[in-house]
Each structure stands twice: as structure tokens, then as C-alpha cells.
């Protein structure tokens, strides 16, 4: 039983407020990911939960107990550091056994626990080695093992994979997901990589500038971002944004700029009319843009015409950077047709999947507090 409740948590260094009014309930056994750009306060928040950083304001509850002033070792948490922080002078076994020794556990029990963790993490053959004799991935596993043996009710992980190469990162990601399945403990995971966040998290908190931008499941964030920041941060390649003007014509609502013209579907049009903005930021994901030449239907509205500037072959899909007047549109096409720089192309948008943001503050007009749907 360990839900973690952050209630109006604040952190300041002197006059500078780094984390502002952080309010979040993390459920028992949940895999929660904090994601955001560098310097947004993810680590600081995690370190406050760990007890490595004082909390300037608000309440932190772990398992229902207020722990603001409880020392780190009594919070029933374990943390995995970005650079592993293994003790260089101890063997793998000693690294994992250290916290148990400090708790004066019997030798036999320590051996049993370390042995078990080593088996889960496939470290059995490495127990006698020093950290400097291990590869990056093995060190990472030892760091996990050190947290594991203590059987904590909350796991904290601060960018645990960022020091690994791309391939290892993917396989360790799977391993962490499997570990969470197996342990069934609460995990809080910090990363600045949105792919990691999307693949691992039960829920994700997107942060910017010390403020929670949005909290939700990966799909909620992907489909219904509440502001332009979240929309641009989640999803790869990122969403396209254009400044457009809204125009009424014979009861239909159009969004247009110099090079783009889209008819807004009825449902969204009603919300946008109610919002009463004239100029908005229109957003559309690369996956919702298609090549008109590849569509069978007769009755299609061309949203934009342009010239292919760059072609990126990713295997399953092809990314096109299309120049349409002043706008550069990134579109994701299924592989099959081959494109070349210089080709002219007509683009069709799946307008059901459009997003609209208020120009002034980037808030979504369609989703979240301003819009109708949540």
C-alpha cells in the first residue's frame, strides 16, 4: 500500500520558484512518469519525494503518512540515479547488500535477498565484480538491484536510461516494464524522452517551468492535449502548428492561412464558435495528413499544395517535409510510394483529428477546461 500524494508542493531556491504548486495523486502500484524539457523541475520534484531536497511548501504523503520531515531512509522508498551512483570500492554483491547490512539483517537473510534480486536481474555471475568492471547496462541493473533488495513501497527513477546507447535503452525499457509488472509497486519515473514516457507510463505528468501542464494516460495526452505545449511535446514527429483565421461561409466554418484552407468539422466548429476567437493556432499531427493522390475517394478537400523538400525513410513510414508557401508541413506517409525532393504534392487533413489553441496562451479550445470534451 503506497500511494503518493503531492499536495500543493512548492520548491524555491532563494527567490526563485523552481516547482510551483505541484498537485498530484499517484495511486498504489501505478507507473507514473514525469516528463518535460531540461530544467523544468522534474528531478527536483523527485528528489523532494526522496527526501534529498527540502520541501518549501505543501504536503507530501506516502502511504497516507505525511513525510515532509521524515528522513529519507524512513520513507520506505528507493531511488535509482541517472549515473547509477554505485559505490566504486564495493563489489556488486556489497553494493546490493549495503543497505541491508546497515539495517543489521542476518547474514543468511542478506544473502537470500541479494541472491534473489541478482537472479531477477541476471546479475548472478557478476556478484564478485567491481562497478568499473561492468558495462553500462550491467551497472544500470546493479543500480536497480540495489533498490530492489530493500523491497521499498515506492521506486524513484531519475532518467535511469539516459546514459545508455539507443539499442540498450530500448531493451532496458522493456526490462523495467517487466519489473514493474512483477513487483507491483508504485514507480515514479523521470525522463525527458517522450517515447519512454509513452511506452512506460500508466499515467504521465507533462511539466514545463515547474508547472504541471497536464496529467493523464498516454492516449489522453496524445489525443486530447490541453495546451500547445503538451501537443508539441507528446508525439514524434511533433504536431504541426499553423496560425489560421476563422471564417464563416454559408453556415460553414473555415480555417485559412496564406497557403492552407480547411473546413472545420461540425462538432469542432460549434465549440470554436462558442469560444469566439478570430485567430487561432491550428494543430494537426503528421499521422493525420495524407497524400491526395493516394486516396480513393472522389470527394476530397485539398488542404494545402506544396513541394516536397526533404524525404526521411523510416522503414514502416516515410516522413515528408513539404513546403507550402510560408509553412513547412511534416507529414507521415505509409511506405510504398516513393517520393523525391522537388515533387509537388497535394495534402489532405483528417480534420476530425484537428486541434485548436488560443493564440494568447496556447490553451486548447477543444479539450480541457476551456473546451467541451475532457
Amino acid at each position, binding site marked *: 500500500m503506497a500511494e503518493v500524494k503531492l499536495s500543493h508542493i512548492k520548491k524555491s531556491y532563494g527567490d526563485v520558484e523552481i516547482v510551483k504548486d505541484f498537485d498530484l495523486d499517484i495511486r498504489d502500484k501505478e507507473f507514473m512518469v514525469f516528463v518535460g524539457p531540461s530544467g523544468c523541475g522534474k528531478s527536483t520534484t523527485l528528489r523532494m519525494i526522496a527526501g*534529498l531536497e527540502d520541501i518549501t511548501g505543501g504536503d507530501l504523503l506516502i502511504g497516507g503518512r505525511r513525510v515532509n520531515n521524515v528522513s*529519507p*531512509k524512513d520513507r520506505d*522508498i528507493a531511488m535509482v*540515479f541517472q549515473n547509477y*551512483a554505485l559505490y566504486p*570500492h564495493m563489489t556488486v554483491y556489497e553494493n546490493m547488500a*549495503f543497505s541491508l547490512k*546497515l*539495517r543489521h539483517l542476518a547474514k543468511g537473510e542478506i544473502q537470500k535477498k541479494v541472491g534473489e534480486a541478482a537472479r531477477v536481474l541476471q546479475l548472478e555471475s557478476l556478484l564478485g565484480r567491481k562497478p568499473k568492471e561492468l558495462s553500462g547496462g550491467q551497472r544500470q541493473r546493479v543500480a536497480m538491484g540495489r533498490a530492489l533488495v530493500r523491497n521499498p513501497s515506492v521506486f524513484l527513477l531519475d532518467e535511469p536510461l539516459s546514459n545508455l546507447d539507443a539499442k540498450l535503452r530500448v531493451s532496458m525499457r522493456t526490462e523495467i516494464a517487466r519489473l514493474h509488472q512483477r513487483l507491483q509497486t508504485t514507480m515514479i519515473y523521470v525522463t525527458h524522452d517522450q517515447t519512454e514516457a509513452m511506452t512506460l507510463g500508466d499515467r504521465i505528468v507533462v511539466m514545463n517551468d515547474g508547472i504541471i501542464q497536464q496529467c493523464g494516460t498516454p492516449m489522453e495526452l496524445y489525443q486530447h492535449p490541453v495546451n500547445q505545449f503538451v501537443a508539441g511535446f507528446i508525439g514524434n514527429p511533433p504536431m504541426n502548428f499553423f496560425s489560421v483565421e476563422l471564417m464563416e461561409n454559408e453556415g460553414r466554418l473555415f480555417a485559412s492561412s496564406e497557403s492552407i484552407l480547411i473546413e472545420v468539422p461540425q462538432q469542432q466548429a460549434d465549440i470554436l464558435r462558442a469560444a469566439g476567437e478570430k485567430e487561432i493556432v491550428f494543430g494537426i499531427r503528421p499521422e493525420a495528413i495524407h497524400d491526395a493522390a493516394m486516396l480513393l475517394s472522389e470527394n476530397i478537400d485539398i488542404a494545402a499544395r506544396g513541394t516536397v523538400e526533404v524525404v526521411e525513410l523510416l522503414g514502416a513510414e516515410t516522413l515528408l517535409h513539404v513546403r507550402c508557401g510560408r509553412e513547412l508541413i511534416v507529414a507521415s506517409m505509409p511506405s510504398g510510394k516513393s517520393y523525391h525532393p522537388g515533387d509537388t504534392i497535394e495534402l489532405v487533413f483528417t480534420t476530425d483529428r484537428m486541434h485548436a489553441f488560443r493564440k494568447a496562451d496556447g490553451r486548447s479550445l477543444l479539450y480541457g477546461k476551456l473546451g467541451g470534451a475532457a
Partner: protein
Amino acid sequence: MQFKTSTKKHLAVHAALILGAVTMLVPFLWMVITSLKTLAESTMVPPTLWPETLQWSNYADVWNSLPFAAFYANTFGMILFRVIGSVFFSATAAYAFARIEFPGRNVLFGLVLVTMMIPGQLFLIPQYEIVARLGAVDSLFALVLPGIVSAFGTFLLRQFFLGIPKELEEAAVLDGCSRWQIFWHVMLPLTRSGLIALSIFTALFAWKDLMWPLIVNTSLDKMPLASGLASLQGQYSTNFPQLMAGSMIAIWPMLILFVLFQKQFIQGVAGTGSKN
């Protein structure tokens, strides 16, 4: 061709090294030779290269005329306690200066550094007064006392502590370490080479400390080796062969220590500490 030039180079390097080694060895050999001469022969001009008859009796004479057992005991006592003291106090102070935030930390550390910039001789009189008022003049305690703290050691070990990543300490905190346990289980083992270097410096310095023992202690049997031998240097005349023989007797424990700890010794002096 390649082979030839590299051989030539090797020869040149070796010649230079041999020259250096010989230069360093000559005074030592001269000491050995002089210790086996008669007093008359030792002061002859021009000097003889090899003694006419080997005067082994010099060794027996000097051994009998001075309390060498007491010298050894005093020297080792002084080295032992100074090393233990300076390592302990320097390490604890250095850790505090490196890692614990407290008001006035930088000013205090500045004061520690300042003591390194003042010539040591200036401290002799105040130190003597302190020891005298403690009523401890002419004792092993007096030999040890001023050497159990070290500004240099504090400075040196602080550098070592600063080089240890903060995350290691944080990991230790999460593992359940108290401040003292962090110091003992994590920080000290990681500064091993620094501790060894400081021990060696302290031991060397204590070994060749001549002035302080002569000032604070008066009885011959309260002297360490260096100062004890100095009593052979009379005001008007010096028996060089006996002085050299005494030096030979005095020197071998240090030689043995050097041979035993050669690796650490050289590492310590070269200061390649921080890599474990």
C-alpha cells in the same frame, strides 16, 4: 635503421638516468665510507677514497654512547601518533569543509590555509609556551602534540572529498547511512590514496623533524633519532665517522619502510591520487 635510432635513444636516456642515480648515490656512499674511517683520516685533505683500515668499532662506540633504543621508541611513537592524529583530524575537518554547509565555513577554511603560508619557525615559540603551560615539556606527548593536526592534510583531503560525486553520498543517505556512516563507509575508502599520501608525508616530516624536539625536550632519552644524533655534533668539534655510523644505524628502519611501501610512496608523492 629504425632499430638503430631507438637503441641510440635508449642509450642516451639510460646514460642520463645513470648519471642522475650516481649523483644521488654519492653522498650516501660517502657516508658509508666515512663511517668506516678513523677520525684523523676522515678530515684528511685530500680525502682518501677508501679507508686504510675498516673501523667497525665506530658503530660499537656510537651505539654505546647514545641511547638508541630510546631514540627508536621515541621516533616510532612520534611518527605513529602524528600519522594517526593528522589523518584523523585532517579527514574529519576536510570532510566538513568539503561537504557540510555551516555558517562561516569559507572563512574558517581560509584561516586554515593561512597557517600554511606562515613559515613554520614562527610557531615554535607559541607552541613551546602551550606545551610548557600544559606542563608537558620533555615528554613523548610534547613531541607529538603540534604534529597531530595538519593544515596541508586538511587542504589535500578536502580536494579528494570534493572529487567524489554527490550522488554517492545521496545514495548512501537513501541506503540508510548516518553522517558518520557515510564518512566511514563511503568517503574514507574512496580517498584511500589521499590518506596514504598524507600518512607518508606526515611520517617523513616527523622523521626529519629536528628543531622541535630539540626545543621542547632536553633529556637525551626523550629525543627521536634525528635530534639525538645531532648531539654528536659538538660545538667545537665533530666526530664525523661516529656521526656517520650513527646515521647509518638511524637510517635503516626508514629504508625498510620505503622498500615495503615503495609503490604507495611514489604514488603519494606523484599525487596521482584520485583514481581508485
